[in-house]
């Protein structure tokens, strides 16, 4: 199981979702991806994308506009 951090700060939706989607294609089931974002839309859109593709959001934090989403990849 690998753990990787992916910095998408500064991008606005839907680009964080697209980059997360493309990144997850390169990862294996069980890998953990930590996504860092600044667009508040990502707090809704990335979890929505994960739900419809079956990936798990393990943690979601928003500290003064710095958003961290932790995703467990499920292929």
């Amino acid at each position: 199981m690998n753990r990787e951090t992916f910095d998408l700060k500064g991008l606005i939706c839907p680009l964080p979702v697209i980059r997360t989607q493309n990144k997850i294609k390169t990862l294996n089931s069980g890998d953990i991806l930590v996504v860092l974002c600044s667009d508040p839309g990502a707090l809704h859109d990335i979890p929505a994308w994960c739900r419809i593709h079956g990936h798990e959001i393990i943690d979601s934090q928003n500290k003064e506009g710095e958003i961290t989403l932790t995703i467990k990849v499920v292929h």
Partner: protein
Amino acid sequence: MLAAQLILDQGIHVEGINFYTGFCVEGHTHAIRKKDRNKAKRNDALWVAEQLGIKLHIIDVIEEYKAVLLNPKHGYGANMNPCLDCKCFMVKKAQEWMAENDFDFIITGEVLGQRPMSQRRDTMQIVVRDTDPHERLLRPLCAQRLTETVPETEGWVDRKRLLGLTGRSRKPQIKLAENYGFNDYSQPAGGCCFLTDKAYSSKLIDMWTARNDRNYELDDIMLLKVGRHLRPKPHFKLIVGREEGENRFLEGYRKQFTYLRPTSHAGALALLDGTAQNKDEIELAARLCARFSQGKQAAIVSIAVKELGKEEYTLDVSPLKANDIPEDWYL
């Protein structure tokens, strides 16, 4: 949403594709403008996919889309919207995706006669002619009024269970949505693309004219969506934030632009796009910046100026009066 549901009703596996051109209205708006933050913070395509229980693939076509916008074979609509070429492009991209992912056919939510440019019988036929030699493009909402496609002739879908909707009224679709229990749905009607917007198209044309170059980068087209744009000189314009969310967004561009900011009074950040050629033009920009600050009635407003590659300095200027700003400076 309705087209997908009609096909799902026939027990067929459906997945969604959403293309991101950079000109899409939703997505960025709730991220930038504070006034929009009470709106549902959702990407409509993702939301629809979740309601339908299907997967959705969002595809970045920003670079490829440039060719569509810059040289549309079929021309533009009322503004800079190349709707017919856009439709052809997206169907072609969907076909590539279909082949790569082992799917059998494509569906779209088009309705015959719904839109003046891209959903007339003749233009819908052009999309087929230009993109679909193998007749794999099915329009479930109006299929009964169109020539049969391979999914129908092969019996993959039951044509009798497809629809024959036509015309500009959306009442039949609203009724169908009610029957399915969909009480929340997006109604794009051209409003999902900034290129259909007159003000946005005007700013895009101004940018191309000022640069004498029609090329663009994503940052260029994002900035056209944000702030007040004023062009006091052919060789520069100011982009002034209208509220906190826009200011925060514009601040992300401070390393790429000369920028100005009131320091003696509350006020917006302004990016200077282009080149101010001398001190007088910088002062003009500062006076404009002061005009949109809380100090617009003050005798003097201090403006911090940070030119690219130089140290920040302060100019004390008198704000321009409303009458001093010609109407044609506003883009």
